[in-house]
């Protein structure tokens, strides 16, 4: 549907209805991963490597198995061999083979009749290690003489002669770079570094797995994607995929970190070995931090040329990223987002992915984009400051619009970058007076958004209410937004629609709730499925009236003759049609299976005011503004929630959060006390402006809002600190000691 054909007069879209899962969640009834129990259930615990890199010489479980109530121990020997590619990576990450590759890497697991007993038994499993040289820092890992972590892991993209830990190499761009830089009045190049951070979902990974000798299995698990859990577990364990049924629980946050598996295959392996009894595994917070997906750390060289009037003439980005001991860091996403906001005649991107002795990186909200934004948006700010230009004016001058060539190649379809910049400029926060030691920072961010495999079914109940079955777990209110779209399409009250997130047996495959796709993809699919059901209801009414189905319209929840020529019949309400369905042809339903096209990319602009204490280096966020193009806000409160949550995570990444590894290669801050995420008193209210440049590829204009919001905060905060102090920090986190040192350096103190 084209933009101008959309009906602006929605009844439900854009209203702030109550979410359907609210009551369960405020009363403690909602069941998350660790809340599931099965009859006869055992409890598991994992044994994890205390070494960053060590050969596993011997595992002896004799003493553990001698304990009364210990039912099974598994090691890598209990998993199939011969896996390749990503299947092998998953298996190796879930359970170490010959070598433990990072501090926290699982080497064995045990199941017993109680959780305490399982933990006791895990301590009795003896593992003999031969420590190997390790490397955890990205810039060390790329050195030619770094300890080689996995010789032979480099893929086809790596030219000969690269250092041993480089496993992926990437380069792209367009235009004449030298000419572009030659045209500039000012060319600046800097290096920026970001540390790995964790998604930090408050609910640790948890599952109950059951697997019989017949190869049939069940799993209840907290996940962003039950079909991903299914194929990954099947691959890791050598099972037939369809024999495994995976039921998602309510999910206590994911942010990308629950799109893959860690303990899930272990619970199935333990169950199989314990005679098919279900086995529950719940990770501790320290295991979550040590062994589940943080994001990559990055070291980034950026060079930008600009004319005195602010016109950018060329850009170059060379990034090095480590995503742990496995390939899979978000290198190409980072590079493709780096200059996405800018119309550049010449641009070059080069990327190196490096292995290091750290946990396998998992996706984290707009994977790669925040790091890239930190580098590019910081340097744009540095140059604008040098030229005395307003940061929003510089961005507007170079902003990409519909039809422009993106930095990564294709031309943009409908986008709303300019609209977000204009809205930020017009907002009161951008004119708020600043006091001493205070500064304002601006940055933009980009995310592609995503469609992915999508299956949805919907059906009309006997009383004319509707059910929708979707495969995308609801992390941030997607059941509310899906319910709104289906109710709007059907013309019935929102309360008459129930949206269920269903298990793998109920639908065709679905990608997880990732890539900001739940409301876009499941939403588009649900609307298409609903339109099928509406067409069927029109057919039923037509048959009843003895007219052609084409002569029936669907208006406000009822079939009615399309015009005076169609005949004179009173509208037939949905409840009436539904009530008769068994005698008019049976069930009324609709479904969608496919890859919904028409993804709409999303830009955002953030403005932050900070105050920096010159004595301590502590940064206080005074005001924070998120402006982002949502396409269409189906449920504005949950759109704002995504903006605010993304901003808070980005602020944490900017100011405090970081993986800290010791000389010994062990993670030193594996707990919420030392891995400190923002708390309520660290933040002000987070102001939001929802820009709506409807996505023509979605029936209601949705773009997807989950990810873009984490991208601008890293540079926005850095730019604000620079404005407040005159000190430019090019390395995260910008915690008080770092800021203090930077202030001292500029003041010569």
């Amino acid at each position, binding site marked *: 549907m084209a933009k101008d054909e959309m009906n602006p007069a929605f009844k439900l879209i854009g209203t702030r209805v109550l979410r359907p899962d609210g009551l369960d969640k405020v009363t403690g009834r909602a069941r998350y991963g660790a809340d599931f129990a099965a009859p006869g259930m055992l409890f598991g615990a994992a044994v994890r490597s205390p070494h960053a890199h060590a050969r596993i010489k011997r595992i002896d479980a004799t003493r553990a198995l001698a304990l009364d109530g210990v039912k099974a121990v598994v090691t890598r020997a209990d998993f199939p061999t011969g896996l390749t590619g990503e299947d092998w990576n998953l298996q190796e990450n879930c359970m170490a083979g010959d070598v433990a590759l990072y501090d926290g890497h699982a080497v064995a697991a045990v199941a017993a009749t109680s959780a305490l007993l399982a933990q006791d038994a895990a301590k009795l499993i003896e593992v003999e290690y031969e420590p190997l040289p390790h490397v955890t820092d990205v810039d060390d890992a790329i050195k030619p003489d770094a300890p080689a972590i996995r010789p032979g892991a480099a893929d086809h993209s790596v030219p000969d002669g690269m250092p041993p830990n480089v496993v992926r190499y990437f380069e792209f761009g367009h235009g004449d770079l030298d000419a572009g830089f030659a045209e500039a009045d000012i060319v600046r190049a800097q290096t920026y570094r970001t540390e790995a951070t964790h998604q930090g979902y408050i609910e640790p990974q948890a599952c109950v797995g059951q697997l019989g000798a017949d190869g049939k299995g069940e799993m209840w698990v907290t996940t962003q994607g039950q079909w991903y859990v299914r194929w990954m577990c099947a691959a890791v364990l050598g099972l037939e995929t369809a024999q495994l049924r995976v039921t998602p629980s309510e999910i206590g946050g994911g942010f990308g970190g629950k799109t893959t598996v860690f303990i899930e295959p272990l619970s199935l392996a333990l169950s199989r070995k314990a005679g098919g009894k279900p086995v529950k595994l719940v990770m501790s917070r320290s295991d979550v931090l040590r062994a589940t997906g943080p994001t990559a750390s990055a070291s980034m060289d950026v060079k930008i040329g600009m004319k005195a009037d602010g016109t950018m003439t060329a850009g170059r980005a060379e990034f090095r990223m480590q995503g742990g001991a496995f390939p899979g860091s*978000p290198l190409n996403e980072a590079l493709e987002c780096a200059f996405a906001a800018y119309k550049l005649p010449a641009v070059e991107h080069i990327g190196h992915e490096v292995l290091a002795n750290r946990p396998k990186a998992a996706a984290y909200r707009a994977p790669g984009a925040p790091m890239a934004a930190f580098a590019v948006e910081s340097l744009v700010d540095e140059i604008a400051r040098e030229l005395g230009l307003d940061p929003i004016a510089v961005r507007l001058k170079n902003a990409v619009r519909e039809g422009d060539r993106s930095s*990564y*190649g294709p031309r943009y*379809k409908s986008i709303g970058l300019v609209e977000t910049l204009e809205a930020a400029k017009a907002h009161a926060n951008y004119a708020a007076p600043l006091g001493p030691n205070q500064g304002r920072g601006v940055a933009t961010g980009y995310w592609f958004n995503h469609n992915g495999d999508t299956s949805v079914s919907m059906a009309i109940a006997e009383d004319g209410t509707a059910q929708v079955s979707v495969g995308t777990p609801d992390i941030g209110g997607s059941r509310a937004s899906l319910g709104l779209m289906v109710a709007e399409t059907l013309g019935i009250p929102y309360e008459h629609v129930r949206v269920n997130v269903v298990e793998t047996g109920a639908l065709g495959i679905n990608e997880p709730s990732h*890539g900001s796709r739940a409301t876009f993809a499941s939403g588009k699919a649900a609307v298409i499925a609903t339109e099928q059901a509406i067409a069927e209801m029109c057919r039923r009414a037509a048959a009843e009236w003895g007219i052609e189905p084409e002569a029936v319209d669907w208006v406000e929840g009822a079939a009615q003759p399309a015009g005076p020529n169609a005949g004179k019949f009173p509208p037939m309400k949905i409840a009436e049609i539904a009530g008769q369905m068994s005698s008019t042809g049976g069930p009324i339903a609709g479904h969608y299976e496919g890859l919904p096209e028409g993804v709409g990319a999303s830009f955002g602009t953030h403005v932050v005011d900070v105050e920096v204490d010159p004595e301590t280096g502590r940064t206080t966020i005074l005001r924070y503004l998120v402006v982002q193009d949502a396409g269409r806000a189906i449920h504005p409160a949950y759109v704002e929630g995504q903006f605010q949550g993304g901003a808070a995570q980005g602020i944490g990444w900017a100011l405090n959060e970081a993986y800290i590894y010791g000389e010994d290669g062990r993670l030193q801050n594996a707990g919420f006390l030392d891995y400190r995420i923002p708390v309520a008193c660290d933040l002000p209210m987070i102001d939001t402006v929802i820009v709506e440049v409807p996505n023509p590829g979605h029936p209601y204009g949705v773009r997807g809002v989950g990810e873009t919001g984490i991208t601008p905060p890293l540079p926005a905060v850095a730019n604000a600190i620079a404005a407040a102090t005159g000190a430019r920090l090019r390395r995260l986190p910008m915690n008080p000691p770092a800021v203090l040192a930077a202030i001292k350096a500029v003041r010569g103190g």
Partner: protein
Amino acid sequence: MVEVHLWSGLKRLTDGEITVAVEAATVGEMLDALTRAHPGLAPVIEVGVSAAIDGEIVNGRHVAIPPGAEVFLLQRLKGG
């Protein structure tokens, strides 16, 4: 004929070419033709790529490529 824009890192595998012209009406035909023209691209395409057709990122092999469309090959994206 479809002109496919590759990322420049692939030049090593295409004898230095960064745009490759192939005969193809769908994404799948385009990918197969690319592999035929430059067998070195096979592992890249196997790992998974996306195509952008006139700015729209698509993954399906059967998606049609309209005549005169601008086509870019991209690494497959993931999201969080």
